[in-house]
């Protein structure tokens, strides 16, 4: 009897293992056209290279995914799921829902060359508690996108220092042009401006300390950031009524030639070009230096893939992660995405001046911040960005806002 049971269990084991070994379930939030195409491509390629694996791919709506991932990691875990680097993955790591993949990062035999070496600059943002929790596959730069023709018409050259930048704003304002456009209805655009002012005034380490809750918001260094911000907000260099506009709606004044600059991520280039701007009148420059001597760190939000700790087919999942980290694969994905590969050995799409500028900037970057709402915990980020928006509409309330944020900080990080 015992033998029968054992053999039954063994048979079941064999059956179940064979039925699982070949299927790799992947959940992604790539509902937009380009990301969807990119994943279609890599999944096809992965299946070609690994004929023993059949991929089952579930595409979730981009916004809905943020809710769904919380459910499916617990109840119906896939073998691979995409997400974001930095503090965004912290809740899942802390709840034990993501698998530790440090071995992929360490084992140089698995990939072409050593992962840690090829992706050294992105390793920090994948590390929590000394371990790596996923593989980054794409990122993009932030900076200032501007109207070249408006700059030329007003005799402005690309500013590299804060004083030049403020002077450029003053010239534009005097010419009846809104210097900087922004749409803050969904709040996060304000964090881009804050992050850059902070990175340039106080540097990367302070940015991390602040987002990790180690410094109070009433700190003089934070005040210094707002002093710089005052120089832009008080003379009215930002678009009026920004609180009513989404980031896309705020592109319109720039397309119409009513606004000259936008502190934005590279994803703004596509809609701007669709609206009629060309390489000849749309340009990009690095956010100018504020405190001389502080090494230039940049914002480069990174997209990642992870293995849920409750995944059924971790062997193939690891193969997929290693595949995703390869230079040739990242090159192809990012050609489709129009973004930048993480792997140093990947080449960037030719003939795109924005990607070329971004790659050049990020390769020389001192460090990469993920963005305020990915580096800071969600609750802090939401209150912080609300505060930034309120400040941009009412610069006089700065003190009150910072005191409120300090209260939130003490609650969130306790």
């Amino acid at each position, binding site marked *: 009897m015992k033998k029968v049971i054992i053999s039954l269990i063994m048979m079941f084991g064999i059956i179940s293992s064979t039925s699982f070994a070949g299927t790799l379930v992947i959940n992604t939030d790539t509902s937009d056209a380009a990301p969807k195409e990119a994943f279609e491509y890599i999944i096809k390629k992965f299946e070609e290279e690994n004929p023993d694996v059949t991929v089952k791919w579930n595409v979730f709506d981009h916004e809905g995914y943020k*809710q769904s991932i*919380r459910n499916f990691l617990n109840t119906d875990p896939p073998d691979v799921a995409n997400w974001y680097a930095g503090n965004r993955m912290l809740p899942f790591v802390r709840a034990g829902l993501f698998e530790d993949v440090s071995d992929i990062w360490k084992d140089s035999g698995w990939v072409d060359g050593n992962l840690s070496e090829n992706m050294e600059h992105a390793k920090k943002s994948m590390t929590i508690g000394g371990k790596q929790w996923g593989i980054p596959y794409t990122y993009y730069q932030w900076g200032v996108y501007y109207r070249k023709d408006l700059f030329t018409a007003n005799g402005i050259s690309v500013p590299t220092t804060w004083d030049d930048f403020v002077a450029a704003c003053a010239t534009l304002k005097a010419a009846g042009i809104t210097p900087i456009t922004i749409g803050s209805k*969904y709040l996060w655009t304000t964090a881009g401006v804050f992050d850059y002012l902070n990175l340039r005034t106080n540097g990367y380490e302070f940015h991390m300390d602040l987002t990790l809750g180690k410094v109070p918001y009433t700190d003089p260094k934070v005040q210094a950031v707002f002093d710089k911000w005052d120089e832009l907000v008080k003379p009215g260099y930002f678009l009026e009524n920004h609180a009513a506009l989404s980031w896309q709606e705020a592109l319109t004044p720039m397309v119409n030639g009513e606004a000259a600059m936008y502190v934005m991520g590279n994803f703004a280039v596509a809609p701007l070009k669709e609206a009629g701007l060309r390489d000849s009148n749309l340009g990009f420059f690095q956010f100018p230096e504020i405190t001389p001597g502080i090494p230039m760190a940049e914002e480069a939000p990174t997209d990642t893939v992870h293995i849920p700790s409750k995944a059924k087919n971790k062997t193939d999942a690891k193969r997929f992660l290693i595949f995703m980290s390869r230079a040739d694969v990242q090159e192809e994905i990012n050609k489709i995405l129009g973004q930048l590969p993480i792997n140093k050995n990947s080449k960037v799409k030719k003939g795109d001046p924005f990607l070329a500028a971004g790659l050049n900037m990020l390769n020389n970057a001192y460090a990469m911040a993920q963005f305020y709402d990915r580096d800071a915990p969600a609750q802090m980020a939401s209150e912080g960005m609300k505060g930034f928006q309120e400040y941009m509409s009412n610069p006089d309330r700065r003190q009150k806002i910072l005191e409120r944020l300090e209260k939130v900080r003490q609650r969130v990080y306790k």
Partner: protein
Amino acid sequence: MELNNSKSKRITWWQRNQVKISPWIFLAPGLIFFSIYVIAPIFVSIGISFYQWDGLSPSMYVGLQNYIELLDDEYFYISLWNNLKWLIFFMLAVPIGLGLAIFLNQIVFGIRLIKSLFFFPFVISQVVIGLIFTWFYQPNYGVIAPFLNLIGLEGFSILANENTATYGIIFAGLYPQIAYCLILYLTGLNNINPEQIEAGRMDGAKGFHLFWNIVLPQLRHATFLAVVVTVIGALRSFDMVAIMTQGGPYGYSNVLAYYMFEQALSEYGYRMGYGSAIATVLFTIMMFYILFFIYRMYRNEREDNN
């Protein structure tokens, strides 16, 4: 004799209790589902409000901490105050709806079409109305921009200003709510007793007098219903806020229902305990109102029966 007695006893027990039991049997399916999906969640939610929980990690009992924090939360008071604004200004839907109903309650060629056009806003989804009004309010581009320019408010954005955003949303919310009240009053006007009006006319009542003393009292039920749905609509004003401002600028157009969602379930939230505490406060406010409503209904029915 004894045997006969016990037999008749058994029969009489069922007969005696049949009338009492059968309504419960018929009510049972409804009651069971109502308690599982409505009553139980209320208590679960109140229970969660004493915990700190992000929906993933284990929850932690914190006692009244969430409520204490609520008392010190600026945004909570803003939301509460906005709820009050909603309650007051949303009520405009009742008199405006009544006015339109009386205006439309005539027999002219094509009145049916006109009536249905007036009722149309109620049929469109709230989301669509919210979106359209957001476009109306768009500074410089929206349809109302030329009028704002006339009164010297060039480039003024109603939804980006902390003082006007809530009123902008309430105004958009009134659009379908007026239509709802309108239809309630139109059906009410259909049921008006023409003899009473005739009698009133004979006694020399005219115009406003006739309306106030004879028509309006007969519309009592419609008015009651209109007020009830409007109050509930005001308290659960969620979709308009979500579509038009997301509580912005910086939380100044938030209402309790949306603030609860923002804290408990939005991208940056997942404070289930805190969200539940807000929900409990909102529930308490609604409970007062619902109890009053039930009491009035009970009283009215007793009056009608007498």
